[in-house]
């Protein structure tokens, strides 16, 4: 008998009594979701910038030090050019190493935990871009900040083999004596620009 069948058999022999699913949860709502998003993002080690209009995006980016000083910038945002990086010619994700800043569009944000949803189809040509770049800038529409994670999952549509990630602030660790260090393996900084 295959292991698969042995395991499923064992589970069916040991089956607990029936138990139904719970009802839906009403998640927290905030009087000012953007304020909650910002405070939580700062708590997670990130930074929030509120762009006043889409045209401002380029100048808002220029105001961000890591962006202004970057030698290599990969942009996945239409209208924002890359700098010294030609993503279309990079066949191997390993060759993304050395990129200083990745500018990536987020679909929406979640106020309760400052998470930004980045669907896999955004991360082309290589999904490693969001973790291998030294700094991350996420561009999120300001009207697309939901209150809680239940609302978030309602918005996500899954298709076969679709990657997706919630990013909340920069990479970090507290593994050494519970002392928080920003920038473990992934982004050393995470700036969210609300447009």
């Amino acid at each position: 008998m295959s292991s698969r069948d042995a395991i499923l058999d064992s589970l069916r022999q040991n089956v607990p009594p029936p138990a139904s699913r719970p009802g839906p949860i009403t998640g927290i709502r905030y009087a000012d979701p953007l304020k909650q998003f910002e405070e939580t993002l700062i708590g997670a080690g990130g930074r929030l910038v509120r762009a006043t209009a889409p045209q401002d995006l380029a100048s808002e980016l220029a105001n961000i030090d890591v962006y202004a000083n970057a030698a290599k910038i990969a942009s996945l945002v239409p209208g924002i050019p890359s700098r010294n990086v030609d993503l279309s010619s990079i066949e191997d994700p390993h060759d993304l190493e050395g990129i200083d800043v990745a500018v990536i569009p987020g679909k929406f944000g979640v106020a309760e935990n400052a998470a930004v949803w980045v669907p896999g189809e955004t991360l082309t040509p290589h999904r490693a871009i969001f973790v291998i770049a030294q700094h991350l800038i996420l561009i999120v529409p300001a009207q697309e900040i939901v209150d809680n994670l239940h609302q978030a999952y309602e918005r996500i549509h899954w298709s076969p083999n679709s990657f997706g990630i919630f990013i909340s602030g920069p990479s970090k660790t507290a593994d050494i004596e519970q002392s928080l260090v920003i920038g473990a393996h992934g982004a050393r900084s995470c700036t969210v620009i609300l447009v």
Partner: protein
Amino acid sequence: MTGHPENAASFVANEERTHWHDQSLWFVRAKRDRQASGIPEWEALREAASAIKTHTLSRLADYLEEFERNAIANGIQVHWARDGVEHNAIVHQILASHGVTRLVKSKSMLTEECHLNPYLEAHGIEVTDTDLGERIVQLRKEPPSHIVMPAIHLKRQEIGDLFHIELGTDKGASDPKYLTEAARGNLRSKFLGAQAGLTGVNFAVAETGGIVVCTNEGNADMGASLPRLHIACMGIEKLIPRAADLSVFLRLLARSGTGQPITAYTSHFNGPLRGGEMHVVILDNGRSRILGQQAFRRSLSCIRCGACMNTCPVYRRSGGYSYGYTVPGPIGSILAPQRDPKKYASLPFASSLCGSCTDVCPVKIDLHHQLLAFRKVLVDLKAVPLQKRLSMAVMGFVLSHPLLYRTGGSLMRAIVPRLPRGLAYGRWNPWGIQRELPPMPKQSFRDLVQKEPS
């Protein structure tokens, strides 16, 4: 093998260090409280998570088959392992068939349970643990002492000394930022040189046939997105039915375990990279047997958050190594004796049954009740020392016979106060090592009550 009491006594002997360890973990418990108090529907969330897990476990075979179907449709290759031996063989076979000699790994307690690292290393595969805490204990050739904060038992100076030897950091340097930067550089080259990435699984979703991995460091993403081969290892109990259910668990997981609203990265892997392969290895290793045990099946709801360890006054003062098992603390004290009752017989007794663990558990496992229930199992299996079983039987006998009880009580109260101190506090009296005996009154309550007006 020494049990918890002996190991704990050694740990506690260094009182200053024990207090430091206790404070470090209490700090995380306090962060959990702050986060939880900000969510008005917190207790409703715990109830929902508990109900979803109970529901899933009631139909686990069906949900596993659904998961497998959808995973395969995503292009994921699904493997099933009855036990740790089979699991390791499967993982090795996948790696060997691709000629892999350099593997990077993100945190997986399941692979610790199966002792995967030594197995792969014996077969010529270099395994690099990439979670910083895991990397630290790997370099020290030690197991993790906490399932979420593997190096919580180490001081920065010790890590600094380790990195000086292993990574070439400055002698005597112990600043966490400096040390983390050194690890970042060292591990970045490991990521870039790896031929495969292995991750754990926080949640497997039946509806989508995909898995979710939560990290703060981004090491799972780095490991799974650079090499083309991704292997994810999961226990059968990691399953949840629908993607929407993730919202319930993700709102609870990081708040409970580390006191954050969510981890920095919550990655939904639903298939391989273009031109790559993704494998999921599903492990039983005794879990299906636990499912059949009414008293203990709820332990399968565990989402490995670590909250029970952070709140346990005993764990905080004895450290993960005192338990001698992959998963320590309250949940470990139920899982370990499931695996080997005689070897881990001391663990269910390494608890004052205070119940704090039960009240923090995000999936409402009745941890302290299961610890108590396991004590009975151990007595029935005669895994508890004879002397202890005998003394309980004797005590039960005395207490069932009022005359014996009253006589015994009178004798105790008459004799103990008259004993010379050396005798009263001899080696036979473990109570008296650090405590005075209670003052023995001349008259018991039942003597005094006769004099009360009725």
